[in-house]
């Protein structure tokens, strides 16, 4: 699976308890936040124009989610399940290889 968190993401599950007995004794966490797909917060969607990409990874570096990953071919990919569409990647890209487009849902 070609995303930043790979298997961890596929295994990520929402946890809902229906009985007090299922709860742990202390309020300790039981899972990661990877089951929470924040991609639906997005209004604008970043689109990568690969021809312009110089593989500098600045977008990857500054993604606060993180939702940008480095692919095996050296280009970057965006995990749209998590990308909130903040646009930092597009703003910081030195070659304007990322554009923010209005997303139709």
């Amino acid at each position, binding site marked *: 699976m070609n995303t930043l968190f790979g298997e961890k993401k596929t295994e990520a599950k929402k946890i809902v*308890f229906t009985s*007090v007995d299922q*709860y742990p*004794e*202390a*309020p*300790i*966490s039981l899972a*990661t936040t990877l089951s929470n797909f924040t991609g639906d917060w997005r209004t604008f969607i970043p689109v990568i124009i690969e021809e312009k990409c110089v593989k500098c990874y600045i977008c990857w570096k500054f993604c606060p989610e993180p939702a940008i990953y480095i692919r095996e071919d050296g280009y970057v990919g965006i995990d749209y399940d998590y990308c909130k569409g903040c646009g930092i990647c597009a703003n910081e890209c030195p070659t304007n290889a990322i554009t923010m487009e209005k997303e139709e849902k």
Partner: protein
Amino acid sequence: MAEYKPIRKVVSGNYAAAYAVKHARVQVVAAYPITPQTSIIEKIAEFIANGEADIQYVPVESEHSAMAASIGASAAGARAFTATSAQGLALMHEMLHWASGARLPVVMVNVNRAMAPPWSVWDDQTDSLAQRDTGWMQFYAENNQEVYDGVLMSFKVAETVNVPAMVIESAFILSHTYDVVEMIPQELVDEFLPPRKPLYDLADFSRAISVGALATPNDYYEFRYKLAKAMEDAKKVIKDVGKEFGERFGRDYSEMIEKGYVDDADFVFMGMGSLMGTVKEAVDLLRKEGYKVGYAKVRWFRPFPKEELLEIAESVKGIAVLDRNFSFGQEGILFNEAKGVLYNTSARPIMKNYIVGLGGRDFTVPDVKAIAEDMKRVIEAGKLDREVEWYHLKR
């Protein structure tokens, strides 16, 4: 099990606490000085300085931080102890909830001292009783021996149910009074109190965990129930540990309320802490004078020993509740609790509340006798003149 040969020492209540901390092999002590607690941490520091105890001592900058650091230490798997008094305990209040909510078995000695203003450094239970709803167990010591025993037992109980515990001793009357204390040889304490097995451990990185995250209304409620249940379960653990302590060391604590002459008593004195020593002395004298009187010393105020109280209430005509504390706008706090327990039962002893010894006003044998006289009169009349009596008030 090795044979028990106690080591008898003449020590203050505060030193008894410090010895118990050493014998419990506490790993982290984070504390701030406050009269009359200070000599506890001084003695612990002396143990460390002499190489007698291997304790990480964190000289924090406030009681709020003392409790916060203790919580951090406990969450990171250590056996943690702190001590405070009055204003210091009040400053800790927020973090008391944190310790119980995070289910950390921190043990703390609180030296009962009156709240200011006016300034006072003397004995008064309002400081600890004001922490009633923080989810801490509360053990009230009658004497220095009970301070020592209480700390050791509290660690065991707390670490079994993962609920923090407070051991409470009177300002000066215990904290600075030297008395004979039987201490337990280290190897026997070790048998009684093995190293802590934490519920979770921040130093375990096999699976990343967060502790105490935001819980929505959908989940918070269940965690409160868990704590309530743990506190309820603690009653049995307290009794079992108290019994085990008695079997090992000869001092039985299987009763959460210590009873004297209750079976054939017309009425009993009920109270907590050091003043009950004086009450016991007075009750013996009163018995010789023909009074059918007994006593009920509440050792554990949280969890509250409802069942034991009910048993007593069913067998006596009256209960004189001695409160060295007060809840403003209502009445003595133990009185209030005890009455509440009995409401849904058939037990209906006459209960009268005597507010005594606030701010360290000495409470003496003649005082107990005078109250016995008053209580006898109330029982004979079959009704209360007034429910709450400010016994010492200058009129």
